[in-house]
């Protein structure tokens, strides 16, 4: 077996039973791994209608065949589960070193099921698996959990070689936008996966391994690695140096230039006073950090010296800065960086957290939140209120308890669901959809709710509707493949130029017959399977929409002036291209073509 290491670890938290299963190679070829294989297993093993926070839900950590190889940016792994925020199937993706280490420890995947009677954590050291009490870790935040677990190692190399994922207080408190953190500052970020882990009383997973990952065609694989590195140095659009110097801050600048930086709860696309990437570098950067096998080093080791918000950590990335900053009417880098550190420590998704705070600010300013409900005024631009609310959400203190349910439930509570900037209850990320028709279509149709990582970033003309549906479909299928393979979306979606590299890496790694056509078909299969899960969970075509403001109220800035999203035009074409009927349900013919007939059968069986 090449690429895959061939073993799945299944942990029944209720009984404490840990069993090792062989990976079904046929299924692996069909769904690759990561979000693909993870979704297939979740689809087969749970009823999509269960409560996401009940013991019946499963939590699957899955690597792909490229994870832990020298494939450029082959660092990624995913968590697949039913989301408590959206009720959709979700697959959150993370880099760092955890995913590769899991494979070196001998497993492609860990499936957690049931619920532990009391807090525990799992250790996996070279196939040696043990559940240990986590009573002493409960209540602790992410950096401290890692430190505690590392302190048990017998040498510094072993301590640092142990790769850990864990939840902070937010996950314990079942905060609906809590994430799972690995390598201290990397996040399986969105859709409330941390709450699922918390609901199972699972605090952390620590892995260390000395095994290897075999590849099918060693020379071909090595050639592909070097071809990628060569292109990276020569092809401008891959943006190597800019990423190294400024990380994702270059995206902030691009959004400022295009006037599509979400501002004041998406009411505008620009705000004065956003620091430029060189300014950010000068003010906070300490060290460029890589994920495993990544030469781009876009991670930002950072430090705030402003005594008011002092601290040290990583980030903020583009998403964190924009959602906690401009979208809350704030540009102050120190305050936003501090808020993003708190999110990392407590284990909270910065996008949903920022958007929910922005939603609160709008509700408050418009008078929908009575004074008695708030401990202090919550207005756009108030950086102190923003930082304080982040903390209150993690611990569910006061109104934080309501915010911890996400902006949709919050806004609904105050009778104003339209103020929530969500699709399928999932907060929109930091690219304003009114600046790109294709982006808007991808948000509205994404299987996990609004998301920037589930479709390619290249959308052709910004305001052109013609041909957009096709680009989005292709982008989504390609991204589904990326997430299954274990490669990094951020790099491989930057330019279409990289599709060929991905497919070559996948094929030389596995020898499983992935031509470009097979690979793209595989992505489409995965995308459709996620759709089937959601349909069975009661999420329908009616949910493929956008907040009313985005559809009806034009932005006032720059090129975006007067533009609203033409969803009514794009959606029918998109469904048709996908081979779905008018209500967004895959047709039996399409499912047969994709080899999903059996899976589709469950939809009509209800």
């Amino acid at each position, binding site marked *: 077996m*090449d690429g895959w290491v061939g073993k799945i670890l299944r942990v029944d938290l209720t009984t404490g039973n840990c069993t090792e299963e062989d990976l079904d190679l046929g299924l692996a070829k069909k769904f690759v791994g990561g979000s693909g294989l993870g979704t297939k297993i979740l689809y087969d093993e749970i009823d999509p209608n269960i409560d996401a926070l009940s013991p019946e839900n499963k939590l699957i950590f899955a690597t792909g065949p490229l994870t*832990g*190889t*020298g494939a450029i940016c082959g660092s990624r792994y995913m968590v697949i589960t039913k989301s408590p925020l959206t009720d959709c199937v979700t697959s959150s993706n993370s880099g760092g*070193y955890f995913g590769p280490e899991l494979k*070196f420890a001998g497993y492609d995947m860990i499936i957690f099921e049931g619920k532990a009677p009391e807090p525990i954590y799992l250790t996996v050291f070279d196939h040696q698996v043990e559940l240990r009490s986590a009573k002493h870790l409960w209540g602790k935040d992410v950096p401290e959990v890692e430190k505690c677990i590392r302190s048990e190692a017998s*040498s*510094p*190399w*072993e301590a*640092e*070689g142990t790769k850990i994922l864990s939840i902070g207080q937010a996950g314990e408190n079942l905060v609906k936008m809590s994430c799972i953190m690995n390598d201290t500052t990397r996040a399986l970020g969105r859709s409330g996966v941390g709450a699922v882990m918390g609901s199972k009383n699972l605090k952390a997973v620590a892995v260390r*391994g*000395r*095994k*290897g*990952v*075999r*590849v*099918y065609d*060693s020379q071909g*694989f*090595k050639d592909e*690695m*070097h071809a990628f*590195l060569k292109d*990276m*140095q020569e092809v401008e659009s891959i943006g*190597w140096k800019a990423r*190294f110097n400024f990380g994702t801050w270059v995206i902030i600048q691009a959004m400022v230039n295009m006037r599509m930086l979400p501002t004041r709860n998406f009411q505008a696309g620009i705000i004065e006073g956003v620091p430029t990437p060189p300014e950010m570098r000068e003010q906070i950067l*300490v*060290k*460029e*950090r*890589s*994920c*495993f*096998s*990544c*030469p781009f*080093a876009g991670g930002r*080791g950072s430090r705030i010296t402003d005594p008011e918000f002092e601290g040290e950590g990583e980030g903020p990335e583009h998403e964190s800065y924009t959602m906690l900053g401009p979208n809350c009417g704030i540009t102050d880098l120190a305050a936003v960086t501090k808020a993003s550190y708190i999110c990392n420590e407590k284990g909270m998704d910065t996008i949903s957290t920022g958007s929910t705070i922005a939603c609160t600010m709008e509700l408050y300013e418009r008078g929908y939140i009575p004074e008695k409900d708030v401990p202090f005024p919550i207005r756009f631009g108030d950086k102190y209120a923003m930082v304080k609310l982040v903390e209150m959400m993690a611990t569910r203190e006061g109104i934080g308890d309501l915010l911890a349910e996400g902006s949709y439930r919050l806004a609904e509570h105050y009778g104003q669901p339209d103020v929530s900037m969500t699709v399928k209850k999932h907060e929109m990320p930091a690219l304003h959809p009114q600046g790109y028709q294709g982006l808007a279509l991808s948000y509205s149709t994404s299987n996990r709710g609004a998301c920037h990582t589930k479709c390619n970033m290249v959308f052709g003309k910004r305001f052109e509707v013609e041909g957009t549906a096709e680009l989005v479909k292709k982008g989504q299928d390609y991204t589904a493949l990326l997430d299954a393979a274990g490669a990094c979306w951020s790099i491989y979606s930057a330019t279409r130029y990289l599709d060929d590299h991905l497919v070559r890496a996948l094929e030389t790694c596995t020898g499983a017959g992935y031509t470009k056509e097979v690979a793209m078909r595989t992505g489409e299969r995965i995308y459709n399977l996620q759709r089937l899960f959601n349909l069975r969970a009661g999420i329908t075509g009616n949910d493929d929409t956008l907040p009313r403001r985005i559809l009806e109220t034009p932005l006032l800035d720059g090129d975006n002036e007067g533009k609203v999203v033409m969803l009514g035009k794009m959606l029918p074409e998109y469904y048709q291209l996908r081979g779905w009927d008018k209500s967004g349900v895959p047709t039996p013919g399409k499912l047969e073509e994709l080899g999903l007939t059996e899976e589709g059968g469950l939809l009509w069986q209800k």
Partner: protein
Amino acid sequence: MAKIKIDHRKCTGCRLCEMACSLQHVENTFQPSRSRIRVFVHENLYFPVIAGPYTEAACNLQHVTMVDGQEFDACIFCRASCPVKPIFKEPDTGIPLKCDFCGEPPDPQCVSVCMNEALVLVEEEENKPQEKAG
């Protein structure tokens, strides 16, 4: 004579060097535990260490090394395959690992994938006395 020059400040912890080294020495396999170069990662410190000679016993000496203003156990930066270290040994047999410069003439794979120039190959004109192995 060629030498590998390590500048740890330029290292970003991508570990591609470990990947390339293991693929070079282990058939068809990526396996950092069998790599002759390992990168120590701690917060903002990334420190590549290349495997040197085998030593039968640990030193008696205890000391700490200051790197970028932080104190570390000096053994972290030592290149010996030594009983106190879990690295630079074949995981199954315990046989010590040592950098072989990827053959003759040297073709260091680790250097070939290090994009950030933390590892560079430098040529030195005059032959300096070589360190004794073992």
